[in-house]
């Protein structure tokens, strides 16, 4: 069985692609055969975050339209040989994605015995986002501790419960995971930022992970290396915990407390 996992959010810029890249890489690190698909037709970016932008020959739409086989279009990751990237088309219009086309590609991946397909959704609630979530078995909703992101997430949670294959066929529910990213415990302690508990309470769902705001996320995207591969970074470790929880392991949340500063640091800043 191939498990289809969508990474979505509604709002743009909250870290969907960063999350897709890290979750896919994390699942592959644990031995799963994983494909990660960029659904953002016209605004391809997953290839950059995965560091394979110069190896894109064929894309998602090429496969849908029969111009390339799945095998030709899947880009094998240089670090993990059971991890593959399917890039979004950069040139086509959004109508190139169709429900039948997406279904065909997902079926092909199932025949190729993939364990996980991670679908990186575009922002918004239009066609691309709809198709990214439609076939999902599980959803990771990425949310930032910020009002517009929280509101949009609630909207997306509503869509996941009604506008997916499982909801329409009555074949069960899409498992919903809430992932809180860009979390800054110092600002939460100062009352400047919504806390984990606030977000959980407002949305009525508990988090599967909390990714602390971290300089290493930008460094990782600069280098084209998913941040989960940076074992030193808090964000990378938090993503590793998240992957373990998605696979059913119980792990306590980390990096939620303010790290105490020494007296000197407090006096002179830093």
């Amino acid at each position: 069985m191939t498990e289809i996992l969508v990474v979505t959010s509604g709002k743009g810029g909250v870290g969907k692609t960063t999350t897709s890249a890290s979750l896919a890489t994390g699942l592959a690190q644990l031995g799963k055969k994983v494909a990660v698909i960029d659904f953002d037709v016209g605004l391809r970016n997953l290839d950059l975050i995965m560091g394979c932008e110069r190896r894109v020959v064929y894309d998602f739409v090429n496969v849908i339209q029969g111009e390339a086989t799945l095998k030709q279009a899947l880009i094998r990751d240089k670090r993990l040989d059971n991890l593959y990237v399917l890039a979004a088309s950069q040139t086509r219009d959004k109508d190139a994605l169709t429900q039948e086309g997406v279904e065909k590609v997902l079926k092909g991946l199932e025949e190729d015995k993939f364990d996980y397909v991670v679908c990186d959704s575009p922002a918004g609630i239009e066609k691309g986002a709809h198709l990214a979530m439609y076939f999902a078995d599980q959803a990771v909703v990425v949310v930032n501790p910020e009002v517009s992101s929280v509101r949009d997430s609630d909207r997306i949670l509503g869509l996941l419960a009604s506008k997916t294959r499982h909801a329409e066929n009555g074949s069960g529910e899409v498992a919903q995971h809430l992932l809180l990213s860009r979390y800054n415990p110092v600002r939460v302690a100062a009352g400047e930022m919504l806390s984990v508990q606030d977000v959980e309470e407002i949305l009525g769902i508990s988090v599967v992970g909390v990714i602390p705001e971290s300089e290493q996320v930008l460094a990782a995207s600069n280098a084209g290396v998913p941040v989960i591969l940076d074992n030193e970074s808090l964000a990378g470790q938090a993503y590793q915990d998240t992957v373990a929880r998605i696979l059913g392991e119980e792990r306590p949340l980390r990096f939620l407390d303010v790290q105490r500063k020494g007296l000197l640091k407090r006096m002179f800043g830093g």
Partner: protein
Amino acid sequence: MGILDFLRSKPKNTANLARERLRIIVAQERSTRGGPDYLPLLRSELLEVIRKYVHVDPDAVNVNLESDSGHDVLELSVALPESEDDNA
């Protein structure tokens, strides 16, 4: 306010503000979710009619659609203002 208070003064807790605003808007949006698209228009037209006769606040009109064991119930509640003069 003493000087110590001044030194200790913190910026306002804006997270609480965010939480309260989100609680209200999320609850409101959930209540209309999945309902027919005409609800917002229905609400605003009803409001217009009511305002012809009574001065009510836009927020005072509440239109709610609830499904209850096979029946859809359209519930309309209007909070009338406290009358200042009874000729209104």
